[in-house]
């Protein structure tokens, strides 16, 4: 069996270092956390920084292409090659046409272990994984620095950084793996890290519930990928990227669609796509830096990575592109609509994350991989910045998260105000901030490739996004401060249910001064928020051209040229902003702000207030029936039906035993008499029987 590996095989200690250092950090901080206490934060951040720096020297090797159209092939001698006893040989023109399709993905490859024929593991660093790895470690580093300030005084300070480091390790496993099983390992481990961090305040029942929900829904995604692995292994005998992509031509369209569909179940669960998105808003139970790193910048974009990684599969399957593009569009719209109905600052950002990932999935789904990946990059910057800014606000207001109880913070927190404004402008796609370039590219990419319906959704969603993000900005920072007034006058009936839950670690309800450690990372992120989009005109497409070779190309100019589309989107966005201004920030609106918020709270349309009833439906369709069946098994079938038959047998046996017992009187003479009578019977039988 020939084993095709993407990238040039070799030994890359720096790559292994970047991969394993966070794991070592996690284990050390977990084990010795109580000892190092306040040093835990700096140690965690430093390790993440080391991982980032270790990746930089690999840039040239990982991006060099052209001359390295190598396929690495191993000949394993059947079942005997359970260990790493493979014989290696390089060949520059292995297996003809298929080689051309995959050789363009050159990068560097480090072999690790082999489980069984077809299940071999290694690390692969190419352009795609390089971008992700740099974002994970880079933004991971910034957010850990921020967390040192944010989490100061928490009783589980070091454990928090252990989890963050573990997350970075898991995410690196996900993006650096050279095969689907390794990807699945990373996929599961990031889910675990997410579980730990959502449930970080584990004495709060809502956090416990949210963490379990997130984990279980993500396992649903895991089994989707698992089933895709079955399909691929049965079809090509391996789960390695190289082996699968080299054999795409051999797969039937139905099989390709099945594989892509199963993989997409994983993407949907991890990247909060409809209908598996319900865990993401609840995941905001975690500390705010976690929301920024895991539930905005990196982990939730794993689905985008997977689809971009599997570009050869999606390129060959028109139905899969249609499916994924549609789901992405629906998610973008649904997330934006649900964002309209939220009052919790973090939940607004969570729904906006869901909506933006919908854009990315729509982009990579229809084949505009480079646009989708750029939107991942710009979103990582501006959304992390938005979350961290929200964290500064929450921190300063003694853990208040309800924007109805904020207001007028523009003058109290000028840094937060300007940072939030910048982030909001970026997410709305105002030129020339980063979001403008990437979102525009995604939206136009759908039209270019012949999906006008998705294009319409994209434009509409851009307008809604502008409205609810500016609503967030205006309600929070404009007008007068409402933190001191009675919540019931704003229509808030159950303060504890509307996002006023207090992170119990900060049990002193007073405003915290904002530390420089929290401001500096946000300032660094601002650079990306402003400038990352410029990569689009600085050769981004050329950089990724080899990785996404064979992607469906646009049909050129359709009825709308790109410039026209840009103007249309910008106009829609400006309309959204204008409506938000009139409703929330115009002088007339500010005068009656309290009354307006009260009316909006009370008259929230039911479908929006209940998040389109997804939770109710999932509960009724899956959770309740499973519990009912379980109760049937445990309390009826087991003790009554299955055990019943056995118990009948034992009752009959016991009755026979009671019968026999009555002969055992315990009296010696009775036994002797029985003996004699028995002997007499024998004698009588032979004596008289012989006569007859």
């Amino acid at each position, binding site marked *: 069996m020939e084993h095709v590996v993407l990238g040039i095989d070799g030994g890359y200690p720096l790559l292994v270092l970047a991969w394993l250092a966070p794991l070592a950090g996690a284990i050390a901080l977990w084990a010795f956390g109580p000892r190092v206490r306040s040093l835990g934060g700096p140690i965690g951040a430093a390790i993440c920084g080391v991982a980032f720096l270790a990746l930089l020297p690999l840039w040239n090797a990982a991006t060099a292409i052209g001359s390295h159209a190598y396929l690495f092939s191993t000949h394993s001698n059947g079942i005997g090659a359970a260990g790493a006893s493979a014989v290696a040989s390089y060949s520059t023109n292995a297996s003809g046409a298929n080689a051309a399709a995959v050789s363009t993905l050159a990068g560097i490859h480090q072999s690790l272990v082999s489980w069984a024929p077809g299940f071999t593991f290694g690390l692969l660093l190419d352009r795609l994984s390089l971008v992700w790895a740099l974002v994970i470690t880079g933004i991971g580093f910034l957010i850990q620095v921020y967390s040192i300030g944010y989490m100061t005084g928490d009783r589980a300070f070091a454990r928090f950084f252990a989890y963050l480091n573990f997350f970075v390790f898991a995410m690196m496993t996900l993006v650096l793996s050279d095969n689907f099983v390794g990807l699945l390992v990373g996929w599961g481990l990031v889910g675990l890290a997410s579980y730990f961090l959502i449930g970080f305040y584990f004495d709060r029942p809502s956090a416990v519930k949210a963490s379990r929900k997130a984990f279980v829904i993500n396992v649903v995604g895991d089994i989707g990928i698992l089933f895709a692995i079955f399909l691929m292994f049965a079809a090509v005998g391996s789960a390695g990227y190289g082996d699968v992509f080299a054999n795409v031509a051999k797969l039937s369209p139905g099989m390709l669609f099945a594989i892509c569909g199963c993989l997409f179940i994983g993407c949907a669960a991890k990247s909060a796509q409809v209908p598996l998105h319900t865990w993401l808003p609840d995941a905001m139970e975690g500390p705010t830096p976690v929301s920024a790193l895991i539930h905005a910048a990196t982990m939730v974009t794993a689905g985008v990575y997977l689809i971009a990684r599997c570009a050869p599969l999606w390129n060959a399957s028109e139905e899969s592109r249609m499916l994924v593009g549609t789901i992405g569009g629906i998610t973008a719209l649904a997330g934006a609509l649900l964002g309209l109905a939220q009052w919790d600052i973090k939940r607004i950002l969570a729904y906006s994350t869901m909506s933006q990932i919908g854009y990315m999935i729509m982009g990579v789904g229809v084949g505009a991989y480079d646009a989708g990946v750029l939107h991942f990059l710009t979103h990582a910057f501006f959304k992390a910045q938005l979350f961290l800014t929200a964290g500064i606000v929450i921190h300063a207001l003694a853990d208040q998260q309800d924007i109805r109880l904020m207001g007028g913070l523009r003058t109290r927190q000028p840094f937060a105000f300007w940072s939030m404004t910048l982030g909001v402008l970026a997410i709305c796609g105002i030129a020339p901030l980063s979001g403008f370039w990437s979102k525009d590219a995604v939206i136009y990419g759908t039209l270019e490739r012949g999906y006008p319906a998705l294009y319409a959704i994209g434009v509409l969603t851009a307008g809604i996004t502008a409205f609810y993000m500016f609503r967030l900005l205006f309600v929070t920072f404009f007008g007068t401060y409402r933190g001191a007034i009675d919540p019931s006058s704003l229509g808030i009936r159950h303060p504890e249910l509307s996002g006023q839950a207090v992170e119990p670690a900060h049990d002193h309800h007073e405003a915290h001064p904002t530390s420089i450690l929290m401001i500096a990372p946000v300032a660094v992120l601002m650079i990306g928020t402003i400038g990352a989009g410029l990569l689009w005109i600085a050769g981004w497409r050329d950089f990724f051209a080899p990785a996404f070779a064979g992607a469906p190309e646009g049909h050129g100019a359709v009825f709308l040229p790109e410039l026209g589309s840009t103007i249309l989107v910008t106009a829609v966005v400006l309309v959204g902003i204008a409506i938000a201004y009139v409703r929330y920030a115009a002088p007339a609106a500010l005068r009656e702000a309290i009354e307006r918020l009260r009316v909006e709270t009370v008259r929230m349309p039911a479908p929006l207030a209940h998040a389109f009833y997804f939770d109710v439906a999932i509960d009724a369709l899956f959770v309740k029936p499973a519990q009912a069946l379980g109760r049937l098994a445990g309390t009826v079938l087991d003790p009554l039906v299955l055990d019943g038959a056995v118990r009948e047998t034992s009752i009959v046996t016991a009755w026979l035993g009671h019968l*026999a017992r009555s002969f*055992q*009187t*315990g*009296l*010696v*003479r009775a036994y*002797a*008499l029985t003996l*004699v009578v028995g002997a007499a019977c024998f004698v009588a039988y032979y004596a008289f029987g012989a006569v007859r």
Partner: protein
Amino acid sequence: MLVGPEQYIALSAVMFSLGVAGVILRRNPLIMLMSIELMFNAANLALVTFARAWANNVGHIFAFLVITVAAAEAAIGLAIVVVVFRKTATVDVDEIALLKG
């Protein structure tokens, strides 16, 4: 009168019957043990008689085996009687039913 095998067998039968009657009718375990000895010896007598009658030594050998077993049985039986007496302070077998099921 010539004493032949018939007479020995008759004696053996009488001895055995006496032993059986003793075991069934008496309530003192010591007497019961003696009655059992009586039955053993009745059997021994029969064995020896037949051995002589058929000029075969197996019967003699078996008689010795029975004597050995009888000795062991008497020893164990007496030990049990002593232990039971210590525990229940009675030697009436009708009042001892420790093995009742």
